């Protein structure tokens, strides 16, 4: 595990630890809701990849933007979202981040700079790059991070926007979470050549980092975000990581595409949370008791949020035609 530590960084370490624990707790509860048939539809778990979202988002300020994916709960939590609105959204309740209209695959949290999950693989690459263009155009120093999976490298849109980002030096960072699979297919069956070569082709500086090591991810992110803010972007990061669950919650029997032993290996030896916990103990940033307390608090928080969300109201049926169009100034009711 990399070490860029000083005691002065303790606050950040604790926050990153907390955030990773929060993501894991959120996902465990979401999974339970699904198994108990309390959640409508399906959802894609982020468990295992926590260090990526947290290491990156810790390097961002809240006006910085991110775009997210179908596997978006982790990014959402990491960028500062609350459990309550998140669970409400997952259950289709009125108090959800999107008033129940978006659900898991479209969860967005504009106030914290999360422009939303996206159910079109690669679909947010344009949005992220456009947000960066917008910042430049409006004279803001915001940076945008575009999260996407290895599978999204199949989408041509990504190459179009990386080219423009490179041509125009946009403050955008492409964060490719290589979790080795796109649905039920191995990355090497979907992607020819080196992944980073696809960004380098446009002259984009590219990095590969261990996505299970939150400090390594954060260190690289700090550096790239700072440089992007100064106009030295764009950048590309390949973050090697792993998803613990199936592609989605319903993907239970998956041995036909990946062995249990591989899953075991990642879970036992490369877990970003327990490895970071060990490091925090070793470096005496936190005690065993403090770690447990964090875990306990987060669990309680999640439990309360779930309880709240389960009891919360669905949106009124009249909302179905609301928000198709945004009302213009001086206009009557939404058309």
């Amino acid at each position: 595990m990399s070490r860029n530590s000083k005691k002065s960084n303790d606050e950040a370490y604790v926050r990153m630890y907390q955030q990773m624990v929060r993501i894991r707790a959120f996902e465990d509860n979401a999974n339970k809701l699904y198994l108990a048939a309390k959640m409508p539809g399906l959802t894609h778990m982020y468990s295992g990849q926590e260090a990526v979202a947290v290491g990156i988002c810790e390097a961002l300020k809240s006006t910085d933007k991110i775009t997210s994916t179908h596997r978006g709960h982790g990014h959402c939590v990491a960028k500062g979202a609350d459990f309550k609105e998140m669970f409400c959204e997952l259950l289709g309740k009125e108090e959800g981040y999107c008033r129940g209209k978006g659900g898991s695959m479209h969860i967005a949290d504009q106030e914290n700079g999360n422009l939303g999950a996206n159910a079109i693989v690669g679909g947010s690459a344009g949005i992220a790059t456009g947000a960066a263009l917008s910042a430049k155009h409006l004279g803001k120093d915001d940076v945008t991070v575009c999260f996407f999976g290895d599978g999204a490298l199949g989408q041509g849109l990504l190459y179009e926007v990386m080219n423009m980002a490179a041509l125009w030096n946009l403050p955008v960072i492409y964060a490719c979470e290589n979790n080795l699979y796109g649905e039920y297919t191995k990355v090497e069956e979907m992607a020819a050549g080196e992944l980073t070569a696809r960004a380098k082709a446009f002259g984009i500086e590219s990095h590969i980092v261990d996505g299970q090591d939150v400090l390594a991810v954060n260190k690289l992110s700090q550096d790239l975000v700072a440089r992007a803010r100064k106009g030295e972007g764009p950048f590309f990061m390949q973050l090697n990581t792993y998803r613990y669950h199936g592609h989605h919650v319903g993907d239970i029997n998956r041995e036909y595409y990946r062995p249990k032993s591989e899953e075991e290996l990642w879970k036992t030896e490369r877990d970003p949370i327990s490895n970071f916990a060990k490091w925090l103990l070793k470096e005496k940033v936190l005690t065993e008791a403090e770690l447990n307390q964090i875990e306990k608090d987060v669990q309680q928080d999640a439990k309360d949020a779930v309880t709240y969300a389960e009891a919360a109201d669905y949106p009124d049926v009249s909302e179905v035609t609301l928000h198709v169009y945004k009302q213009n100034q001086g206009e009557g009711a939404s058309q």
Partner: protein
Amino acid sequence: MREITLSKAVNEAIAEEMRRDSTIFLMGEDVAEAGTPFKVLSGLVEEFGTERIVDTPISEPGFMGLAVGAAMTGSRPIVDLMFGDFIFLVMDQLCNQAAKTHYMSGGKLSVPLVLRTNLGATRRSAAQHSQSLHALVAHIPGLKVAMPSSAYEAKGLMKTAIRDENPVVIFEDKLMYNDKAPVPEEEYLIPFGEANILREGRDITLIGTSSMVQVCEKAADMLAEQGIEAEVIDPRTLVPLDEDSLINSVKKTSRAIVVDEGHQSYGITGEIASRLNEKAFYYLDAPVQRMGAMDVPVPFSPALEDITVPTPERVFEQALKSVKGELFHGA
């Protein structure tokens, strides 16, 4: 007759055709070992191998383009598009290339390919995984559009689609994959452009597409209890459209409702209703009614999603109004 699921029916159709014609191959995301996320194609790769059941990267525009080129050069590709919503990604290759090649080449080149995809909301899949976008492709000359409404149609139309010399888009209802229907063991094909009259009646014609055929049938049951005899028709293909059967039915019943799961505005219902109005105008006792999905992105929340699509109850009510003459001056 044996009953099989719509999923199995599609699988059989493809397998039978692939056995018959070695120029056919199928490609798409997770179609091979995974057999698609809906498991519709399970078992095919075991029989036909990975050369003919081809897993692609997540590159819809790209593999749609490959299919066009393959079809132009002697192969007969079947493209699997995981969700109908992704059709937006392949529109250029489908509509600017596949649809126009035969015409632009003055008949010299042809593009015999099948794009199989799906439609249907109420699966809690939200706005980008729930759309019914068949109207978009029905508007483009050069494409044929099939809308199976049961396992029987799914098999017969798929086989016809595969043998067609033109690009055909076939929309399956993803909520019906596990629905069973009687399907003969013997080979059969369902010709394009022939509507199916599921139920005869003299009081009102209910025209339903795909998923909405069941809705119309249920509404017809409810109407029957009120002594109203509804005729239920499934056009089965939107392009070509069996206008004659629809018109003849309406000439008999003098009333009609067109029910479709695509957005109502600028969609399927407008076209069919217009043709009936134009060509059966003087037979009509009431304006042809239309019931499409609401003109809203499909919301995630079950509380909202369920009211966006036509239901048997609402078709029943609308039919009742029409028959009772309550449709004076429209909605």
